[in-house]
């Protein structure tokens, strides 16, 4: 799915937290939105996901100004698993059928949670919960996948699984994936394109390698230098 942002602004309590004049997320690519705290990454992603409305401006999805939630998968920053088994949590957003059972099993195996499928989701650790939430999201065949800090609680193995799975879903289903991260290493490993935000604006954007290894703007240089420390 192609996502085009046109002159969007988000204002909270008279303070502008996001201001993006124009940006386009192309179909079938993986995008990472990076930046420091309060840069506006999450707000931008929430507006793209349709769970928050821009104060001004429009977001177009394949040319349409309205989001079709059926075609979009979104994982909020705060993971919420329902008080039921891991299996039921993952199967919530997918139609029942033989193929879907296979997809669910595959997704659980991929995130390394197949042994936990009959366990209550509330008994899992933070990292395990995040893996289940990722499986629940990626099990659905969708044109646009949005993830807010998908690796915030995962360990190194979890990060690798996440990276491999995003690549696989993107390759097999040509889904556009946009994820927010504090971790430039994950961005450079998985994303085709990288968007750097600071003070609510897109300051620099380009291929992940260019953005992370050859920063041009002083804000991005500082961000990358701080990350390297």
């Amino acid at each position: 799915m192609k996502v085009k942002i046109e002159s969007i602004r988000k204002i909270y309590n008279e303070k502008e937290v996001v201001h993006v004049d124009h940006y386009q997320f192309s179909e079938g690519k993986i995008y990472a939105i990076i930046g420091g705290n309060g840069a506006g990454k999450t707000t931008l992603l929430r507006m793209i996901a349709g769970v928050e409305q821009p104060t001004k401006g429009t977001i177009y999805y394949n040319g349409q100004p309205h989001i079709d939630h059926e075609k979009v998968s979104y994982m909020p920053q705060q993971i919420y698993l329902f008080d039921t088994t891991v299996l039921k949590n993952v199967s919530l957003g997918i139609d029942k059928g033989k193929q879907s059972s296979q997809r669910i099993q595959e997704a659980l195996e991929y995130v390394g949670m197949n042994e936990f499928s009959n366990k209550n989701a509330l008994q899992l650790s933070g990292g395990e919960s995040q893996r289940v939430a990722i499986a629940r999201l990626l099990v659905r065949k969708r044109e646009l996948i949005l993830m807010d800090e998908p690796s915030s609680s995962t360990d190194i193995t979890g990060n690798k699984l996440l990276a491999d799975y995003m690549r696989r879903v993107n390759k097999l289903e040509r889904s556009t994936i946009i994820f927010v991260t504090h971790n430039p290493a994950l961005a450079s490993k998985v994303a085709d394109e990288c968007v750097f935000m600071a003070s609510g604006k897109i300051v620099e954007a380009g291929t992940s390698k260019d953005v992370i290894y050859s920063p041009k703007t002083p804000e991005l240089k500082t961000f990358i230098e701080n990350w390297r420390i």
Partner: protein
Amino acid sequence: MNQILTSLIEALKLITSLDREVYMIILLSLIVSISSTTIAALGAIPTGVFIGSKEFRGKKILVRLINTFMGIPPVVAGLVVYMILSRKGPLGFLDILFTPAAMIIAQVLIIFPIVTGLIISAVKSKVKIIWETGKGIGLGDGKILRLLFHECRYPIISAIIAGYGRAISEVGAITLVGGNIQFRTRVMTTAIVLETGKGNFDIALALGIILLSISFVINYIAHRIQENR
């Protein structure tokens, strides 16, 4: 101290003697409190879930009003019901003043805001993340509402039990609208007040023990429900 001990022994004798009046009082107490809790819960659950999960004009004022009524003095509620049901009142034609029906109405008036207020708080704390998670995996509004109800089931049960606790221990309103008539509208709390006034501490204490035992059983059940989650 001696008097308390003597009363306690007398109370236990009274409980085991199967005294008709005592058992009538217990039965009526249970009928009135269970009926009022059921009626209040039937109204409070949809009202609480609706107010807690939806945004609408005047919501803040409505919630404040409910919170204020959560602490309504029972005698005030009783007075209002008395005025409405009295011969000259708007519902005087029903001729139900000084009957268990009037007592149930008064208790509903007292516990409905309590149960509703507690459900609103429970729903409010979870609605945003459940709605976002549900939308993120493409669920419809109906399915999200069912999930919200499922996730809030324990606080809802607790709210109902809190309402029941208030109903069974209430005395002011039911004395006003019930009249504490022997074999007709006398319940445990009103009987305790009456017997204490008459100096019959053994009967009063016996009823107090029964009242405490019922509260203990209700709390035990509530605790078990919470533990089994």
